[in-house]
């Protein structure tokens, strides 16, 4: 089983900031917009390097979406950044009309997603954003797993022609993917090959899945871990190939059950290859105040819960 090394904990939002700066250097059409969250979104370096391409929108997210659409129509590549709830639920109609239906090349940079936002509590912990964005025609949904992958995914999003929802988080988490591996939109990354059970994970839960696979290996269970970094379009071939081998799968995500990765995979497998599945997600609940680790344990999303679910399938 392939072992991954945490090269030092980093927040995925800083990966976004690094990717944004790199994308801005590579292409002068790249703009960055924020609604009074420049620091939280790690846009400081971009704003300092390209002040003429950094647009402060104030606490007015609806306008930010429209202004970004205008910039995109004019040929720019705008990234709009805020907390996940405020660039999805708060502005859903604006994104639907101006970005998705309007087919504009806007990149939605969504930070502080999921419960690992932590202490701010449920108003800020969106667990519904993937469902909202998946439902929009032509929207690409990317949820990278660590700093390096978020950086590379940001660069790839800038180069992709079309609307992208790029989801990342607040806390520092293990950084374990290669720093220089270009991100491929629509590709599922097979992190570990295994034969007994597949663990499909996305975002912060990929590291948890890898940790769970190590625990399972110690118990004689060979788990295949697949990083679903792009939730839409789903890499159907990779999903099908894995479950045809293992025959059962766990789907783990920091998102509620409705409309999330679990339902996306279940719909595919129901159609093409009925498979025993187990789902780890936020169920039908709101988050609450706590440390990220406390919340991950309380909502059943950490490595121990993933391993437990996999074992139950294998038995």
């Amino acid at each position, binding site marked *: 089983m392939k072992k991954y090394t945490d090269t030092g904990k980093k927040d995925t939002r800083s990966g976004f900031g690094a990717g944004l700066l790199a994308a801005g250097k590579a292409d002068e059409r790249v703009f960055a917009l924020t609604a009074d969250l420049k620091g939280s979104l790690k846009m400081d370096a971009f704003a300092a390097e390209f002040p*003429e*391409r950094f*647009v402060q*929108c*104030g606490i*007015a997210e*609806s*306008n*930010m*979406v*429209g*202004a*970004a*659409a*205008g*910039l*995109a*129509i*004019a*040929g*720019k590549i*705008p990234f709009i950044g805020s907390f996940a709830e405020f660039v999805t639920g708060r502005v859903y*109609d*604006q994104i*639907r*009309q*101006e970005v998705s*239906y*309007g*087919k*504009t090349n806007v990149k939605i940079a969504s930070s502080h997603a999921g419960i690992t936002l932590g202490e701010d509590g449920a108003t800020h912990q969106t667990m519904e954003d993937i469902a909202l964005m998946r439902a929009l025609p032509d929207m690409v949904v990317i949820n990278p797993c660590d700093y390096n992958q978020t950086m590379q995914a940001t660069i790839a999003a800038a180069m992709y022609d079309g609307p992208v929802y790029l989801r990342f988080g607040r806390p520092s988490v293990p950084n374990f993917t290669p720093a220089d591996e270009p991100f491929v939109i629509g590709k599922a990354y097979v992190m570990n090959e295994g034969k007994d059970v597949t663990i499909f994970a996305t975002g912060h839960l990929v590291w948890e899945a890898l940790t769970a696979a190590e625990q399972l290996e110690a118990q004689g269970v060979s788990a295949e871990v697949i990083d679903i970094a792009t939730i839409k379009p789903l890499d159907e071939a990779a999903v099908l190939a894995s479950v045809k081998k293992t025959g059962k799968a766990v789907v783990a995500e920091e998102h509620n059950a409705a409309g999330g990765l679990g339902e996306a995979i279940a719909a595919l497998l129901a159609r093409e290859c009925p498979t025993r599945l187990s789902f780890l997600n936020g169920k039908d609940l709101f988050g609450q105040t706590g440390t990220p680790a406390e919340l991950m344990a309380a909502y059943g999303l950490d490595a121990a819960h993933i391993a437990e679910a996999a074992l139950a399938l294998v038995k």
Partner: protein
Amino acid sequence: MKKDIQELQSIASQVRRDIVRMVTLANSGHPGGSLSSADILTALFFHVGDLTPEGWTRDGKGKDQFILSAGHLTPVYYSVLARAGYFPVSELATFRKMGSRLQGHPSIRKGLPGVTQASGSLGQGVSVAAGLALAKKADGDPHKVYVLCGDGESEEGQIWEGAAFAAHHKLANLVGITDWNGQQIDGTVDSVSGGGDLEAKWKAFGWNTVVADGHDMTAIIDAFARADKASAGNGKPTMILFKTDMGHGVDFMAGTCKWHGKAPSAEQCQAAMTQLEETLGDF
């Protein structure tokens, strides 16, 4: 080629015929606000703006741009675009029909020339226009961006987010147009929301304002010239508030909200046609 006042009045009469006939044929649509903004859009497309179809692209490079924020005003929008030569006038007969490029509200997905952005969900056009204006400013493109809003639409909070944004970023190349007809679906704007002093609101948000009669071609053209002068003088965006009558030009439709989104019967359409001169040939 700029049209003179008489030619503009002639085009506007035909546009009004188109509006009523399109909505009648479709048996749905929004004649009221289309009729109230017909003179303004005719002046804008045929005299004021660089909005000819020649060289038009969605990105608007090297041309003025127009955004219809009040997306339900497609009858007047499509008629003006067709009469300006963006697409065949005969296509107006397909308005709101299955498969048509003339969707009920503007779409960029059907490839209709002249449409820069989708609209219909209200209150978003000022933001989009501000983004376009920001891009023109960044690119050193001296052309303008025009956006048409309704006064009822201006109840949407996002209008005011866009207003503050455009003023903050000194978008002097952004020209707002309000079809100030005082009506919305449920009644007069005053009765529905207590609209207040719209001019004072725009001023308070840091815009220049110009108020003019939206049914007097000379006054309309003069208003755009005053807007240019004001923006050039102080670097602020300008909102032109045109006083209009909903349903203007058809006596039984004028001055009421009843025809905001209602199609006339064939007989009512005939009655309207007797009041509007056919100047350019019906579609």
